[in-house]
């Protein structure tokens, strides 16, 4: 068992979580909690695969996934921003809606055939670095490299630019932002849309690159929810989100790969000789999500950092309070 190969695959798997997590961070930073990530990812994965099969062009699939995810997110945006309904309920309903649409439209898609994949390539020079090179910069899909670029870009955007400051203002104290002439409603629609596009991209990353194909709701297998959990662990910070996503990706791969070899580090591999232990292995990513939430929640209490202050609250112009 080559550890580097597993870690390399883990980074690719983690990219799925990273896109979804970063999208949810942007939406939540604007004050809108969108629990529909799982539904938007499924819609994205389904649209990407079906468009790629129909046109033979995976780039069009990618585009379709982002548009589909973004459009679906606007249902939630309208219900929570315009109608000021409960964001938890609407987000849950969005997951049901997205899952339902994806399953109906994706019926029979699992036998639709093969697609031409997005390009894989090595990064010159960087791929020669020992350990880091083979894990992070060798034979990855272009989507993985796009993920790397997003980490500093989104961090810089949120923390160092004027539009990023507006984003944070809208999520922390919308009344003050409104008084400064920032259009709270428009910004919230916009960032929910961006979050939906990134969730769609995360779905496309599954069906076009990491695990090509359509396996109905097992395509995402709860990764949208893990992403929602990772946002809390990441404390709404893109860099922590990246660390969490890639760690989780590696864990998911490890769970799949550890049952393969007969020997690990010179001793008999117990997971190979007890295949039924695999069921407990498959619990690990989900159990780990809960553990990470406990750690993240405790740390947030200790350091007195928390969610954006207006997260989950509708903004009603002219009302007192946040």
């Amino acid at each position, binding site marked *: 068992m080559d550890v580097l190969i597993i870690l390399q695959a883990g980074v690719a798997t983690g990219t799925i979580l990273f896109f979804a997590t970063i999208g949810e961070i942007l939406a939540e930073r604007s004050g809108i909690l969108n629990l529909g990530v799982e539904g938007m990812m499924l819609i994205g994965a389904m649209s990407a695969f079906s468009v790629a099969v129909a046109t033979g062009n995976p780039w069009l699939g990618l585009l379709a996934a982002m548009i589909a995810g973004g459009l679906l997110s606007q249902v939630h945006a309208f219900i929570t921003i315009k109608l000021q309904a409960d964001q938890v309920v609407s987000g849950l309903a969005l997951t*049901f809606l997205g899952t339902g649409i994806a399953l109906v439209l994706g019926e029979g898609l699992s036998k639709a055939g093969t697609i031409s994949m997005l390009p894989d390539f090595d990064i010159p020079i960087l791929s020669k670095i020992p350990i880091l090179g083979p894990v992070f910069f060798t034979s990855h899909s272009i989507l993985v490299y796009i993920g790397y670029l997003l980490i500093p870009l989104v961090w810089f955007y949120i923390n160092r630019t004027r539009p990023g400051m507006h984003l944070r203002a809208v999520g922390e104290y919308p009344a003050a932002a409104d008084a400064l002439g920032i259009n709270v409603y428009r910004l919230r629609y916009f960032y929910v849309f961006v979050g939906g596009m990134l969730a769609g991209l995360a779905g496309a990353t599954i069906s076009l690159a990491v695990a090509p194909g359509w396996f109905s709701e097992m395509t995402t297998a709860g990764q949208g929810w893990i992403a929602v959990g990772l946002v809390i662990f990441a404390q709404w910070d893109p860099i922590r989100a990246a660390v969490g996503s890639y760690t989780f990706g590696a864990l998911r791969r490890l769970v799949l790969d550890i049952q393969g070899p007969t020997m690990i580090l010179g001793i008999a591999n117990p997971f190979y000789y007890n295949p*039924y232990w695999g069921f407990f292995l498959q619990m690990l990513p989900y159990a780990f999500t*809960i553990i990470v939430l406990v750690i993240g929640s405790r740390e947030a209490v200790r350091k007195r950092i928390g969610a954006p202050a207006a997260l989950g609250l509708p903004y009603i112009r002219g009302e007192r309070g946040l």
Partner: protein
Amino acid sequence: MADLQPSRSSEKRWSLPFHITLEPWLAEPPRWYPMFTSFMAVVIALILGGVVIALAGGNPFASYAHIARASLGSVGVFSDTLVKATPLILVSLAASVAFRMRLWNIGAEGQFFLGAFGASAVVLIPLLPETASRWLFIPFCMAAGIVMGALWGFIPGFLKAKYNVNEIISTLMMNYIAVQWNNYFIFAIWTEGGFQMSKMFTTNAWLPRLTDFAASIPWLRGLTVHLGFILAIIAAVLVWYILYRSRWGYEIRLIGDNPQAARYAGINITRNTILVMMLSGGLAGLAGMSEITGVVHRLQGAISPGFGFTGIIIAWLSKLNPLAVIPVSILFGALSW
């Protein structure tokens, strides 16, 4: 409501340093309004479904007529509809009671699986000998199902109460863990001849069905409604009583409506969080027990076509009213195939 604000007209020396604004009472929506919105939601959903059927090249009217005939057309098919409604009633109650406190337990699916596991454990370990009386099996299986479901609700409830862990994510993660837990027992421990299912339960452990009494009352032949339906109705009345007629229910509703006020009134939110999650999990566990001993009669993988999630939708359509859950569940039982 009196609203105290610092005066803005400070140059008028004779005015009070604050002024009082009286706001009019907001008109409350009439009592029929919640029912009306739920009804319209169902109607609009049916119309949208009809549009989808029409787009797919079918005749929506013929399709709906067929669904109505196939689920309500005769005593036999209506009995099947009630069988499908039984687990839905129980998981919807589980969702309603938690949502009433604004605890977002979306783990009814996992609690259902653990309830099914608990009931199966009584039969398959076996905790009771195969020849034990039916009237011993039923309470034991019920207790095991409720306890396992409550345990599965306790974990996220405890984490929420002690560490403020978001219960939406933790309950959902517990769903995936529950499926793998059951899979382990289906594949590794209780497998029958390598198939992914346990052996059939001994008939003593089956919940009695109407058709079992066909020997004395012939027209009951073929009716599959089982004792679980009665249990579900009793549970609905009990949950209604707890929520709307008991002190505990008052606490639950107060925490749901205004946690600040509840805290100042001295209500223990930590304890109620854990207890309500256990009650919710126990109800979902009972649903699993009822389904496994009333319909499936063995532990296997495919025991729920997403009951836990349909339950959330039913709970909302019923406006979290435990009694309204019964007719809405029957409607959903009729719509599902």
